[in-house]
C-alpha cells in the first residue's frame, strides 16, 4: 500500500478490517480486506443504523515505522493489538514482545470519508489468472525504472507484455522489450482477442511482491483501454484489490455509447484537464441514473445500486470508471464514489459532484 499512497485509510467493518490507499493523481487504488477470521480477536465496534462506520487515515510512514524491521518482528513480537479510540483521537498499536516487553504506539489520525474506487470486475471483458510467480518472472525482464507496461492478448491465446513507449520518443533511441506467455502458463484465460491495456508498472510491482510472498494466484480483470484494470488476490481471510487506470486510446473508434458511456460528455480531448468546469457541468446536466445502456459515467448512489451493493459479495460496487481529469500522461483518474452526503443510500441527486476528493478540499 505504501507503493501507492502516502496515507493509509482504515475502515473497520463487519466484514473485516479494510486498509486502503490511493495515489495522488487518483489513478491507482488498492484495498486489503482482512476478514474477522484473520484475527485472533476482531471487534469492529458498534455501528448501528444511526452511527456511521468509523473511518480514519494515518500517515503511511508513521504506520510503517512501527513495523520497521520484519525479521526482528518475527523473532520478537508475539502479538499485535490494534485499538481505534475516536474520543482520544488515537490509533493505538500495541506490540506484545518477547520477555514481557510491550511497545505501545499512539498514532494521531484524521477522520475521513470513505475511500472507494468504483469498479466492477463483472463488466470486464477479459480475465486472466496466473500464479504470482509467473507474472513476477515476466516483469523482471523490464527495467526497474520502467513506468508503464502494455498487456495484450494475441493469437493462439498468447498473452504479451511489453514496455510502453511514448509516441514522442525517438524510435532509434528506444529499446522495446516484448515477451509472450503461453496460455498454459495461466490458470485460466478468458480474454477478448486483440485487446491491450497500458498501466503503471510501479504500483503493480508492489502487489506482485505481496502476491508472491503470500503465494496467492493473481487475477487480472481488464476491458478496453481507458477502463481500469483490476488485479485481485483472494484467500479465505484476505481480499485484495488493486485498481489501476489505463491509458485511454484516444484515437480508438470504439467510443460508442454502448461500450463506454463517454458519449454523454463533450468530446474527449486533452483540453479536458483545463476544462474541468464544463466537464462538471456536463455531468450534472446529463441523464442521471438512467436505466439505459450501462452508464458508467454516472455511478451515483441510486437506490437500485445501494441494494446491489448489499447483495454483492465482493467489494466492488457501482460500475465503470469515469474519465476524470487525466494527469499529463493521459491516464484517467478512477472514479471515487460520491461521498458528500452522509445519508448516502437512497440519495440520488443531480447535484452530486463526482470524483470528489475523499477528504474534501
Amino acid at each position, binding site marked *: 500500500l505504501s507503493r501507492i499512497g502516502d496515507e493509509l485509510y482504515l475502515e473497520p467493518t463487519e466484514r473485516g478490517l479494510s486498509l486502503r490507499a490511493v495515489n495522488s493523481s487518483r489513478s491507482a487504488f488498492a484495498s486489503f480486506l482482512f476478514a474477522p477470521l484473520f484475527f485472533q480477536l476482531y471487534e469492529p465496534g458498534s455501528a448501528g443504523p444511526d452511527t456511521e462506520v468509523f473511518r480514519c487515515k494515518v500517515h503511511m*510512514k508513521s504506520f510503517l515505522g512501527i513495523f520497521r524491521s520484519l525479521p*526482528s518482528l518475527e523473532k520478537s513480537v508475539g502479538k499485535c493489538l490494534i485499538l481505534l479510540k475516536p474520543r482520544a483521537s*488515537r490509533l493505538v498499536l500495541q506490540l506484545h514482545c518477547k520477555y514481557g516487553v510491550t511497545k505501545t*504506539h*499512539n*498514532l494521531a489520525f484524521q477522520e475521513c470519508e470513505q475511500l472507494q474506487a468504483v469498479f466492477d470486475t463483472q463488466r470486464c471483458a477479459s480475465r486472466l489468472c496466473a500464479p504470482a510467480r509467473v507474472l513476477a518472472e515476466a516483469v523482471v525482464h523490464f527495467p526497474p525504472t520502467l513506468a508503464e507496461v502494455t498487456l495484450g492478448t494475441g493469437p493462439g491465446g498468447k498473452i504479451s507484455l511489453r514496455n510502453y513507449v511514448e509516441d514522442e520518443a525517438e524510435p532509434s533511441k528506444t529499446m522495446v522489450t516484448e515477451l509472450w506467455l503461453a496460455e498454459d502458463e495461466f490458470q485460466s484465460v478468458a480474454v477478448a482477442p486483440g485487446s491491450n491495456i497500458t498501466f503503471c508498472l510501479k504500483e503493480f510491482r508492489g502487489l506482485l511482491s505481496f502476491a508472491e510472498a503470500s503465494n496467492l494466484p493473481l487475477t487480472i480483470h481488464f476491458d478496453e483501454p481507458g477502463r481500469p484494470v483490476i488485479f485481485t488476490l483472494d484467500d479465505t481471510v484476505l481480499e485484495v484489490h488493486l485498481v489501476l487506470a489505463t491509458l485511454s486510446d484516444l484515437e480508438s473508434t470504439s467510443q460508442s455509447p454502448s461500450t463506454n458511456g463517454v458519449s454523454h460528455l463533450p468530446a474527449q480531448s486533452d483540453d479536458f484537464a483545463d476544462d474541468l468546469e464544463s466537464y462538471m457541468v456536463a455531468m450534472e446536466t446529463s441523464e442521471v441514473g438512467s436505466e439505459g445502456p450501462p452508464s458508467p459515467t454516472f455511478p451515483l448512489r441510486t437506490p437500485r445500486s445501494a441494494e446491489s451493493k448489499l447483495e454483492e459479495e465482493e467489494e466492488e460496487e457501482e460500475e465503470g470508471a469515469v474519465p476524470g481529469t487525466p494527469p499529463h500522461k493521459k491516464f484517467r483518474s478512477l472514479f471515487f464514489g460520491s461521498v458528500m452526503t452522509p445519508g448516502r443510500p437512497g440519495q440520488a441527486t443531480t447535484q452530486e459532484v463526482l470524483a470528489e476528493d475523499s477528504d474534501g478540499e
Partner: protein
Amino acid sequence: MPFSAQPPASGERYALSASLDNARHLSSLLRAVHFQDHATCLATASGLRVTVEDAKCIQANAFIQAEIFQEFSVQEESVMFRISLSVLLDCLTIFGTSSLPGTSTALRMCYRGYGYPLMLFLEEGGVVTVCKINTQEPDELLDFDFCSTKVVNKIILQSEGLREAFAELDMTSEVLQITMSPDKPYFRLSTFGNAGSAHLDYPRDSDLMEAFHCNQTQTNRYKISLLKPSTKALALSCKVSIRTDAQGFLSLQYMIRNEDGQICFVEYYCCPDENISEAEL
C-alpha cells in the same frame, strides 16, 4: 625532535606508558563514547579513564583498567590531558577496522608529561606505524555527584532487550522520558514524536530484568539527542544499570566484555531536561 621507529627503552621516565596486545580492546570502548571530537584522558594506577562531555548536561566515561593492558605504568599520582578523540581513534584503527580472526594491532602508548604529545606505536603483521598526537590543557569536568547512597531507583537489564529499542527511538521526539516505579508500568521509555507517542514497557518480572530496586515513582525527561550516542555503548554491552537520584539525574552503566572475556565499563550521566512539564502521556 627526531623520533625513531623503535619504542622507547624502558627506564626512560614517561608519565604514562602502556602496552596492549590488541588495540581493539581500547578502540571499541572509545568509540562507545565518541560523540564529541575531544576527550579528557585521566591515567592513574588503576587504569585509564576517557571522558567526553556535551552541552554541560551529559558526560560519558570509558574505563579501561590497568589489568587489561599488558603493561601499564603511571609515574605520578595521576596524569591528565585533553586530546582529539577523533584523531586518537583514527590512529588506533590505522590498520583498518575489520577484525580478521587471528590478526590484531599491537599498541604501545607513551606520554612524557605536560606539554608533550601522546605517542602511539602500532604494529600489525610486521608493519609499524608511529603516531604523535598533540595534547592540550585538560578541561574542568562536570561532577554529577552521583553516588550509590543517593540513588532512588535502580534497575539492571540485559542489554539485549534495550538494544533494538534504542536503535529505533523516534528521533522526531525531542525528549526521551524514563519512568521508573515500584508499580506499573515499572520501567517505561517514552517518546513524543511527529507521528504520535510511543511507550516501551518492561515489566519487573521480565526475564531481561536482572535487578529491580525501585522505591519511588519517578518520571524524568532527557534530551534525546544527548542520549542517542549511548546506543553505541549499549550495542557493545551485555548488561546495563539504570539509576536515578532525587534530582532526576540519570546514570547509565554499561558492562562490556571484550574479545578476551575481560570486563570494562562505560558510563553515561545525564541531567534531566527542565524545560518541560511533568505531564506524562
